[in-house]
């Protein structure tokens, strides 16, 4: 498989995971105090 494709998939996946972590943090965040 074309290595640029692999690199592109890895970068895209990492961005998706960062988005997922942000969504997770929003979902589980409780009101402070």
């Amino acid at each position, binding site marked *: 498989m*074309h*290595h640029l494709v692999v690199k592109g998939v*890895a970068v895209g*996946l990492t961005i998706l*995971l960062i988005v*997922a*972590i942000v969504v*997770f*943090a929003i979902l589980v965040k409780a009101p*402070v105090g």
Partner: protein
Amino acid sequence: MTMIVRGALWFGLYFFLILLPLATAAISSPARVAPSFIVELGVGAGFVGLALMCLEFALISRTKAAAQAFGEDALQLFHNLMGMAALGFLIAHPVLLFISGYPAQCWLNPLAGCANVATRTASLALYVLVVLVGLSIWRKKLGIKYELWQVTHGLFALFVLIAAMVHIFIVGRYTTTPIMKAVWLMYAILVTALLLYYKILLPILNWNKTWEVVENRLERGDSRTLVLQPVGHKGFSFQPGQFSWLKTGRTPFGLGQHPISMSSSGDVESGDQVAFTIKDLGDWSGQEVTALEPGDTMWLDGPHGVFSMDREQGMGYVFVGGGIGITPLYSMLQTMVEREDVRPVLLFYGGSNWESLTFREELDDLAGQMNLQIIHVLSQPPTSWEGESGYVTGEVMKGYLPKQYKRFVYFVCGPEPLMDAMEKVLPELGIPAQNVHTERFDMV
């Protein structure tokens, strides 16, 4: 099922497994006691990083069903890239917590008075992971032997996983719920099963499937061809262009397996010999391979790989090889001759000088038996050289490609600079991506 569908399914499973701990934590969080958004970001980064680490074992587990969809060198590269991503997430994990006020001294210094099991396992896992990734990136520059690196890589990775698992269960932020425990238990079972299979079960199964060295001959370009004979078993046939993992030593266990392309015809009868050609790059290839004598025993794990004309039928082929990357291409050409395949093949063969071209005479012989045109491209040509000089470039290729070249199938194998160049040149020539197949022989 097409390879694209199979690839999409495997990737979907991979993505699902990475997000599973995060999703489970979000759904099953027993009490919303999060002190801050930043802390939860840190926790999420930790879960994703650890899940990525667990799946790193699966990416290089030589699972044929997955490898067939992507190619093992692509999986290896993906393993390397996602390992670095995992490191990034696992560094972000404590950084975000420190920003939120967690005491860095306790979490970074295992010897600090405030340190406990949870902090020590966390800091040690992180430090070992940094070393693990650093050694992988700079192994060659540091001069570390491949075999030694292979051992430390596996042991360090296992240590990181165990320490990280202990850490998350002691902290217990989300791991107190049965479903979350079940998820991480599943990951632990997955990694353990993969390790047991590849390090224990497979060597036991291969114990009696030995191969005997029949011949060890020197080739042009500081290379050696090992001709191996299966002993007491049928051996294997393979798709020309594939490779096997070779193991020397007294037992099939353990250390130092090397991915080497077969250099003989793929159409092997039961019990027939198989040849491998290996370039002397120092350590194993220069010492142990050189010392092998007829009668010595080896173990093979193969065949592996998707770099084969048998999987990609075309009206004709263009092969681009550099250095020892000629080996899988040579195997394909021999197989075509045996099959009396009349389709045209153009071979661009790059090398430093005329004398170092491995299989130079053998390829000339094949050209007399099939529709093969060889274009040698020398970076250090002799003064009387009238052929192509420099490197295989788009300009060089344009001078030889037939009018229908966009319908040909391209196979490229060689050192990194050649591979990088071809990944730019071939799209510029208008070759459809699905017609281009590459394999990097220094994938590990």
